[in-house]
């Protein structure tokens, strides 16, 4: 069968110790039996490792941070599209999703397909709205309190026992065991990520995760559960293993059915000693460990691209249990010219 040629634009090429999903996403697509993919890498920083990896991207373009305004980012994408004729765009950072969701129609009119959650789906799973989300969809979530000022710590102490998790609305989480640590975490997080800072009840147990893909009609196209076996000091998975956990699968399917989730997602759950599951976070995009799902038999990147292009995708029900991923670091030797080109010309 002749493969369909497509041009794919992907962000998240930061394969650092806090990796983005771009490189594993591309790797999955390159293994597709249906697509012959030409990859356009979208980067924010000139040292994102994906820029320098051989045979990964045909072109690299630096794009402006979403914080500098949606219009700047979208205009840059349109400029790249005029040169490269993008078929599918897959944004991989939470912070850029808003800009792309807002401009989904505008991009589609020009032939750039995306497959993103709706605004409602994106907003109702935000960390500071998690208690309402849990109540609405019948899922256990840790109790939480949205902090807008240090004065609310007394309220926090009335509500929870220590330790508590203190989290930023987009990123960062600290375990705090006393008032001083809550204050410190509050200051660090609010300075970086703004308000509210979320104080969450600490649920003791094992962290387990699911990577999943919803078709927007309530169907789960793919889902693979995983347990982290080794984490970095930021809590990022550096090794993991697929699980046979029907409860996690049921929870995922139920959530996607109820929300009609559209696009990739990662569920972060805590499994307690008594076998209860608490949802602690939903990431509205594919996680950096997505290649484990590909290795276990579910090519989620390929399925997502097919959905973006309006192609039929049959739900994948099986995966290999006990498949592991082990990450590693690797020093690439690169020439200065490449670094100079991305730094000066903003493209390679």
């Amino acid at each position, binding site marked *: 069968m002749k493969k369909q040629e497509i041009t794919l634009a992907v962000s998240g090429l930061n394969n650092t110790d806090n990796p983005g999903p771009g490189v594993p996403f591309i790797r999955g697509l390159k293994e597709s039996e249906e697509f012959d993919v030409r990859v356009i890498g979208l980067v924010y920083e000139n040292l994102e490792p994906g820029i320098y990896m051989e045979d990964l991207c045909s072109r690299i373009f630096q794009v402006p941070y979403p914080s500098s305004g949606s219009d700047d980012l979208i205009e840059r994408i349109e400029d790249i599209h005029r040169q490269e004729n993008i078929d599918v765009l897959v944004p991989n950072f939470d912070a850029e999703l808003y800009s792309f969701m807002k401009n989904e129609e505008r991009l589609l009119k020009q032939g750039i397909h995306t497959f993103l959650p709706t605004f409602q789906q994106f907003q109702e799973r935000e960390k500071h709205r998690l208690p309402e989300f849990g109540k609405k969809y019948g899922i256990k979530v840790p109790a939480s309190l949205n902090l807008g000022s240090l004065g609310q710590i007394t309220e926090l102490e009335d509500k929870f026992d220590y330790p508590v998790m203190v989290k930023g609305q987009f990123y960062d989480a600290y375990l705090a065991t006393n008032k001083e640590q809550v204050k410190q975490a509050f200051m660090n997080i609010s300075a970086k990520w703004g308000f509210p800072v979320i104080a969450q009840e600490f649920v003791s147990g*094992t962290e387990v995760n699911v990577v999943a893909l919803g078709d927007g009609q309530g169907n789960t196209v793919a889902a693979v559960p*995983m*347990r982290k*076996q080794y984490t970095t000091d930021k809590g990022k998975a550096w090794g993991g*293993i697929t*699980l*046979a*956990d029907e409860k996690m699968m049921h929870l995922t399917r139920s959530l996607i059915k109820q929300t009609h989730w559209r696009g990739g997602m990662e569920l972060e759950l805590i499994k307690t000693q008594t076998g209860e599951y608490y949802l602690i976070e939903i990431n509205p995009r594919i996680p950096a460990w997505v290649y484990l799902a590909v290795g276990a038999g579910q090519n989620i990147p390929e399925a997502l691209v097919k959905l973006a292009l309006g192609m039929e995708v049959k739900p994948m029900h099986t995966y290999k*249990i*006990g498949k592991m991923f082990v990450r590693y670091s690797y020093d690439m030797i690169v020439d200065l010219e490449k670094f100079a080109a991305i730094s000066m010309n903003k493209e390679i």
Partner: protein
Amino acid sequence: MKIIKEIKISDNGFVFNSNTGDSFSLNSTGLELIQLISQEKEIEEIKEVFTTRFDLDELTFEKDFYEFCSLLKLHGIIARESTSEFN
């Protein structure tokens, strides 16, 4: 007493719980014990095997056997509800 279906036991003593992702290493004695338990042998049959093969009295075997089973229960390798006999 039943080993839960998610448990995979390798011939080299590596035990993997595919439900939790936990893994354990058994020595040759532990491996033989868990294999006999997984074949749903009764304690009397297992005791016979071990007391015949090793210089071991029945009381010592039972003490070690139930201790081993408690560990299996603790780690969710045997179903919790099926183990009331050594609670």
